[in-house]
């Protein structure tokens, strides 16, 4: 059974289309990424998936429940990790988990599950600590643990690692991979392309309320971007790029102070640069960020 099936999903605010005809089919056990610049309609799409806001048009089922009509029954089977940790500041770690469980009608015999989740979040020994005493990484882990209290089939994460240090982020990634290995379906939004590339089986890039590209990260890169990229910065490199470089590249892009050269094969470019040792450059593989910027543009969104 398809976990999320959306057809022509749309949401208007005061005649302005924030989500404008989104089709989604997310399969069980998948990690699906929703990428897009700020204001692209990601959050509104997630809110519609969770039954928190009524679509203006379109059809939507999540875990077989018609949404928003049967949103309550659906949310009983879903875990949500919101963007801001939104933990209860009046409660300790343990009380946060117990209170959250009570919202699901889970109270009798929930103790062992709470202990298990404290272990999952690596918060043993901190059960009695207040939320204010936790680091950012611990709070995010607690948010994740809380979202799992009801053993959800689908976990929705809104920017799960924003604001975390690299260690904390690695830790969250491990936990997310473990969830996927358990057979749970994950939907996540992120601004970190490298995160999406690592975690997501499939992703959709959203802009202007529409899906502008969808597929496996590797396929998206192959479909939209030449595999080799040269980044040239500074006066001399720029000069060289505008002349000799562009002649050898398949495509170029001028991004503020940086010139990007794209090539199917960069051996000629690298050979030419070898003959000009003063020029500083960065040679790398094409990545998801290139796809993202190509499809959504380089302009600031807010």
């Amino acid at each position, binding site marked *: 059974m398809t976990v999320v099936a959306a057809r022509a999903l749309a949401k208007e*605010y005061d005649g302005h289309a924030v989500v404008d005809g989104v089709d989604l089919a997310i399969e069980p056990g998948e990690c699906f990424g929703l990428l897009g610049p700020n204001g692209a309609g990601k959050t509104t799409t997630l809110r519609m998936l*969770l*039954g*928190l*806001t*009524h679509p203006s048009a379109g059809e939507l089922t999540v875990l077989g429940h018609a949404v*928003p*009509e049967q*949103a*309550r*029954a659906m*949310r*009983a089977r879903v875990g*949500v990790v*919101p963007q*801001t940790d*939104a933990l*209860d*500041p*009046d*409660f300790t770690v343990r*009380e946060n988990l117990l*209170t*959250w469980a*009570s*919202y*699901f*009608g889970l109270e009798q015999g929930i103790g062992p599950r709470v202990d298990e989740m404290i272990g999952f979040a690596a918060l043993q020994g901190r059960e009695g600590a207040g939320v204010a005493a936790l680091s950012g990484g611990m709070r995010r882990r607690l948010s994740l643990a809380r979202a799992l209290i009801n053993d959800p089939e689908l976990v929705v994460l809104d920017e799960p690692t924003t604001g975390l240090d690299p260690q904390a982020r690695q830790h969250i990634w491990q936990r997310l991979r473990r969830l996927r290995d358990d057979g749970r379906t994950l939907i996540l939004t992120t601004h970190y392309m490298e995160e999406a590339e690592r975690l997501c089986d499939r992703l959709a890039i959203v802009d202007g309320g529409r899906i502008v590209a969808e597929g496996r990260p590797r396929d998206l890169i192959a479909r939209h971007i030449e595999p080799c990229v040269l980044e040239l910065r500074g006066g001399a490199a720029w000069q060289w790029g505008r002349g000799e470089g562009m002649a050898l590249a398949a495509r170029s892009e001028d991004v503020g102070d940086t010139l990007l050269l794209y090539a199917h094969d960069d051996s000629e470019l690298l050979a030419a640069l070898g003959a000009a040792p003063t020029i500083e450059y960065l040679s790398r593989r094409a990545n998801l960020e290139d796809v993202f910027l190509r499809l959504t543009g380089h302009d600031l969104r807010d």
Partner: protein
Amino acid sequence: MARPDQLLPVPSLRFVPVWRRNLRVWRKLMVPSVLGNFGEPLLYLFVFGYGFGRLVGEVERMPYMDFLASGIVCSSIMMTASFEALYSAFTRMHEQQTWTNMLNAPLNVDDIVLGEIAFAATKGAFSGVAILVVATLAGFVAGPAALWVLPMMLLIGLCFASLAMVVTAIAPGYDFFLYYFTLILTPMLLLSGVFFPLSELPTVVAGIAHLLPLANAVAIVRPLMTGTVPADVLLHLSVVIAYGAAAWVFATHRLRRRLAS
């Protein structure tokens, strides 16, 4: 999930975990909360009642302290429930994002509103009970008929919690609550027969006062506490219930739009 344009709330027992969440927090902050809730009404009762009561002597053929005690029970429920459903609820809605968060669980806006109203009413009733106990110990209460006041306390609490929830639903910020206090609650406190009988007011003003929910609450609670049988119980009950029910419907409707659009 109810459609945003649906008029009536959809009550469900799911409000209980919301109520219990607040109760859990309240138990932690019991001491300052108790001081805040009972300190002021008790000061009114004893200081104001003692000083003023000596000047007045009897009111409506009863000692002023007996007259005042029943009024203070009602006004204390009103104030406690209002504070909770205004400042505390707004903090949970706006500052702490507690409600937004709850909506990610299988709870709806309707459950949250009902849970918050029920909790504010509980707190209000609790303060009413505390004052009733103190007033009984001090000898201001006539007899066991006053036990009938207990269910009435919950009803008064529900009424004022619902009214305050309407204000919370439309408030852009904390400052907005001052309008409610200055324009509604304080005039109601002074015009509802808490401190002096409505019969002392000019006819027109008294006529308006009879429409106020607090005046109708006092009209039931005072006879029960002072050992007489209340008159027109059904009428007074209906007024209190009507205010509460209308406010509950309106607050739910507004908050659905505010939280779920």
